[in-house]
């Protein structure tokens, strides 16, 4: 099987798993779900790090650097603010 088809398979299956898991999240937690999934979409930091560290040209490094900054704001900010919100739900109950 060609690699592309394999990756496409992974993509489609992940979408289905995503639908199954996420439909079970109660409306009470929809805002933390959004900020948390936001943090997860910062996974693009992996690509940004590869670019920033590739040492190919200065331009590639700079583009990678900017992408790392944006993605890390997303990752750190997203997980922290989600934690803040969820801690408020945990306080009592």
């Amino acid at each position, binding site marked *: 099987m060609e690699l592309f088809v394999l*990756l496409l398979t992974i993509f489609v299956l*992940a979408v289905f798993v995503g639908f199954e898991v996420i439909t079970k999240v109660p409306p009470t937690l929809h805002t933390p779900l959004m900020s948390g999934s*936001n943090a997860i979409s910062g*996974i693009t930091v992996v*690509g940004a790090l590869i670019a920033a560290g590739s040492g*190919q040209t200065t331009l590639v490094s700079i583009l990678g650097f900017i992408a*790392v900054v944006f993605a890390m704001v997303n*990752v750190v900010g997203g997980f922290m603010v989600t934690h803040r919100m969820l801690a408020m739900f945990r306080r009592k109950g």
Partner: protein
Amino acid sequence: MDLDPNLRNVLYLAAAVLFMFGIKGLTHPRTAVRGNMLGALGMLTAIVVTLIDKQMLGWGWIIGGLALGSGVGAYVAIKIQMTGMPQLVALYNGFGGIASALVAGAVLHGWIHGAAQDSLSIFEFIGREGQNPTQAVVATMASGLIGGITFSGSVLAFAKLQQLISGNPITNPLLKIANGLCTVGAIGVAIMLFMHPEQVGWYWALVVLSLFVGVFLVLPIGGADMPVVITLLNSYSGIAAAATGFVLNNTVLIIAGSLVGASGLILTKVMCVAMNRSLTNVLFGVMAEVGVGPSSDEIYAGKVKAASPDEVAMLFDTARKVLIVPGYGMAAAQAQHVVRDLASLLESRGVEVEYGIHPVAGRMPGHMNVLLAEADVPYDQLKEMDEVNATMEQVDVVLVIGANDTVNPSAQEDPTSPIAGMPIIDVGKARTVVVVKRSLSPGFAGIPNPLFAANNTLMMFGDGKKAVLELIAALKAG
């Protein structure tokens, strides 16, 4: 050091599994904190694996970027007020989108550079790197296009929510033409990029045009529809990350991106159903056909009954079951803490208190729940619309505070109403309804609310916070 590719991919898989468990944890408030931690652990795993896998050269760039981004992210996450969550999520969506677009651009530059060094065509070079050239170029296009739209659309949504610019829909026939031109231009440029990926200018032209398309996408969308925009852009930011995964043949990007894409789409659908609007209607700023409804004078004249805090306090004195229906107006008046105080006082007198939360009560899905949780309202008192509607007849007093369209019976009774078909919290079925409101002014939908003139409704005019404080004082005195 270079990791064995199989080991690397297994570790990426572990990170993806942690993301799945992380979101699964969010299915209950008790497990949610741990779920979020698992997600963060997954991210840490993915970052560490990446750093030790590749022969990293520019450590200065890497450490600088990681430190700067983390610092800014942490600072904002600590400082942000809960009322500002929609803006923050909007902005972060955009950051994820632009990061994906920049990564795809950087990778394309790298391919062009590598191909030139080895005197190969870019297609030969990509093929030699073990990639499918068509997949790589198409995925690069998708990253640039979706990432660009996500970024500018999100920044504009942020500006609207932060009230840096007017939240009103901006519609103009010229805008539609400009939007059409940009879309056609983007398609043309994308085709050029597909044929000549070695000319990197096409990529950046595509990104710039996408930025314009994103602006035109969000401009015509008004304040009330913002939840749909945020959820949709949330989905886009995930799809952009997944596209970047196809650029890099990286499985963890594909899995995590598609999770986020699915999540955003589900929430978009939830929001559309809660407003009884189709996604197309929201996106193109189309409101439902407006019939000539009764004017506010016809509905309200002589039928609206105002009540003083003392009179309302007497109602609460004899109530056994109270339902509080909050809207965004409650948060805007910063009244959630005094509402919680009122609920506690009632509970201490043996009254059963619940909150009925409409799905679009805040500015984003679940926003009202977060605002009430911040005011120490236990989450098991927060009930969904369907749940409270089922037991509405048993409620003695409903307290509507800062909500309007979400409790407007026209949505159910008047097929010509602009909000016809929108599910509402059917408070009219309760024994008595008390509405705390400044005046009889309409909500987002701009229509009068027959609930205010109903036989069993009492209006308590005044600022939300002040009115509730007066009510508490009257209850304690009585």
